[in-house]
């Protein structure tokens, strides 16, 4: 390949997936990730560990509802939790750009501490690098996380009739960051939904036979559900009217012509549960402050195998595909 990396390669859409497959997985072979899952299940002498990593490159560094530090803890904690693990330990690698205000750095580190405390995880090792001004963007953060696998998921048992639940309103993080773009004449009370969800998830796991779950980050609910349905003998059918949406997210979506189903969340999980457990799952979720607006938004169906389909508010059916990429700001 004689092409160059462009922004789209980091969009989280198909271009990212293709790059990972064609470059990383191909060359790493046996030494690379054996699945495209966000975390890896590791055989331990007794029990199994889950290990995951994410880098955070959000701009701006601080935003309503959080900052890059909040994201770095919550993102990795959530990645562990949605694998069915109890998050225990995080690493913290920061790349600082010369010129960053130490005050800003302190605020971010405080956020990290606060979220680690809330999530009950310890940051057990770290690393600091500084790059020249103009070779970074304030601060980049990598966190890797280790958890103990307590509730292995069973996507292979998913069957038509199983219910799709989302833990709250959709698209908040992405739309909140979009309205902050420099020069955009928009104002709203939108906040990122960034939150550590391991507590909420474990309450849900206690109550319901969760078969699969995933945090709906880059690419949003539509992308995550596509990952669920792809290659399966069944399909996902969503009910547009049932999808929780804050007024402001709906408003920004209309103003900018964007679809909130593709907008990133940093505090929302999609669950697949058996139909008879859906009520319990909702009850469990609503015990958490982060799950108050949880709702059943669709179900697994025999029709449309491999696809995710939306029953629109007009009563028609529309396939939800995966977007290639967005010319949008970095949001996580």
């Amino acid at each position, binding site marked *: 390949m004689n092409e*160059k990396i462009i922004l789209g390669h980091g969009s989280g859409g198909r271009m990212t997936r293709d790059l990972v497959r064609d470059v990383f997985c191909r060359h790493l072979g046996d030494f690379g990730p054996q699945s495209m899952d966000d975390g890896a299940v590791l055989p331990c002498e007794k029990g199994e560990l889950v290990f995951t990593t994410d880098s955070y490159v959000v701009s701006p560094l601080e935003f309503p509802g959080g900052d890059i530090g909040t994201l770095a803890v919550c993102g990795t904690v959530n990645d562990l939790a949605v694998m069915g693990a109890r998050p225990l330990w995080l690493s913290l690698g920061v790349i600082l750009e010369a010129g960053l205000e130490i005050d800003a750095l302190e605020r971010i580190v405080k956020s990290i501490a606060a979220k680690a405390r809330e999530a009950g995880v310890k940051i057990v090792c770290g690393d600091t690098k500084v790059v020249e001004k103009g070779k970074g963007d304030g601060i980049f953060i990598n966190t890797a996380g280790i958890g103990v696998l307590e509730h292995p998921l069973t996507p292979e048992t998913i069957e038509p009739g199983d219910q799709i639940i989302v833990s709250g309103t959709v698209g908040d993080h992405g739309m909140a960051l979009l309205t902050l773009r420099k020069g955009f004449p928009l104002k709203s009370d939108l906040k990122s939904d960034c939150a550590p969800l391991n507590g909420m998830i474990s309450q849900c796991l206690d109550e319901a036979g969760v078969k699969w779950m995933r945090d709906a980050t880059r690419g949003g609910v539509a992308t995550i559900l596509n990952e669920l349905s792809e290659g399966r003998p069944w399909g996902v059918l969503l009910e547009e009217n049932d999808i929780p949406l804050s007024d402001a997210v709906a408003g920004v979506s209309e103003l900018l012509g964007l679809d909130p189903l593709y907008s990133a969340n940093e505090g929302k999980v999609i669950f697949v549960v058996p139909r008879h457990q859906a009520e319990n799952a909702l009850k469990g979720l609503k015990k958490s402050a982060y799950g108050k607006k949880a709702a059943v938004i669709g179900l697994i169906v025999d029709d449309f195998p491999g696809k995710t389909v939306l029953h629109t508010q*007009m*009563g028609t059916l529309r396939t939800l595909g995966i977007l290639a990429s967005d*010319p949008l700001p970095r949001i996580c």
Partner: protein
Amino acid sequence: MNLLKDFKNPVLARKLSAAIAETVGDRPFSIMEVCGGQTHTIYKYRLREMLPPNLRLVSGPGCPVCVTPIEYIDKAVFLALEKGASIYTFGDLVRVPGTMMSLEKAQAEGADVQPVYSPFQSLQAAKANPERHVVFLGIGFETTLPGVGLVIREAQRSGVENFSVLLSAKRVPPVLDALLSSGKAEIDGFITPGHVTSIIGTKAYDALCETYRVPMVVGGFEPLDLLGAVHLLAGELAGGGTRNLNAYSRASSKEGNVKAQQVMEEVFEEKDDELRGLGVIPKAGYGIRESFAEFDADRRFDIVTNSREPKGCICGEILCGIKAPEDCPLFGAICTPDAPVGSCMVSNEGACNAAYLFRD
């Protein structure tokens, strides 16, 4: 009332759908929705499912990104990379392939490319960064042009020296005229573009209806707006009428927005212009008037391009309503939103993009 939600009411939609079916009976008709925004809504809500199979909706030439010649992208890339200009643009343009590269790829080569919501942002950026030259990519139909004119006027008024507009402005009526006079597309009626009409007024279509004896109805962009427009058109088609009607009267009038027309008149002048795939059409475009020449990127810079249209792309025929995206052999196989060949695959308002994104 909520002007957005009420026009998505599914109960009314079903009523309109039934009325349409009853009105057209089983006679076959083709209706063209002129505007790309309308195409987007039709695909997004799958409105074709709500129409009888004998009533065909055909996408028209009203997607501004789609009709912009590839040379325009090449010029923008040239200004960014060779002249070091900061490019401010509507987001849709960023991924359109040029002959050598898209603006997104130019960005990876170091170009400063900023997606904006409003042309005013580009003028603000020029004022805030006097050491850089800011070029706004002024593409669009009559909906967008008055705003671009306002910004150019304001730039002159406030003496901004580091700002210019690369213009590719198109006019709907001459394009429809060319389409109809060519006789290639067999269209029985038109849904004319609501927001363009807010500016130019419904009177702009009177002559077309009369000359070509074809009914036209102004349509909005919500599902009900479009079904309402189809409903009115269906009545005309069923009864052999060729009137120029308005199903978007809450936002457009016979005269249009006179102030906006004045701004356009002050800043721009009509000219023969090329639309991608359609060729040069008399009076189909606007240029910047001599009195604002300093803000015309084309005049201000010596722009050198070596443009070639991509092989195999049938965007032109699709824009004329002669072919559908699925008729293109490249569609979905070689040409996808990840690696678009033609411009119709890029914009959310392009027929190929909508057809791909919302395909089964």
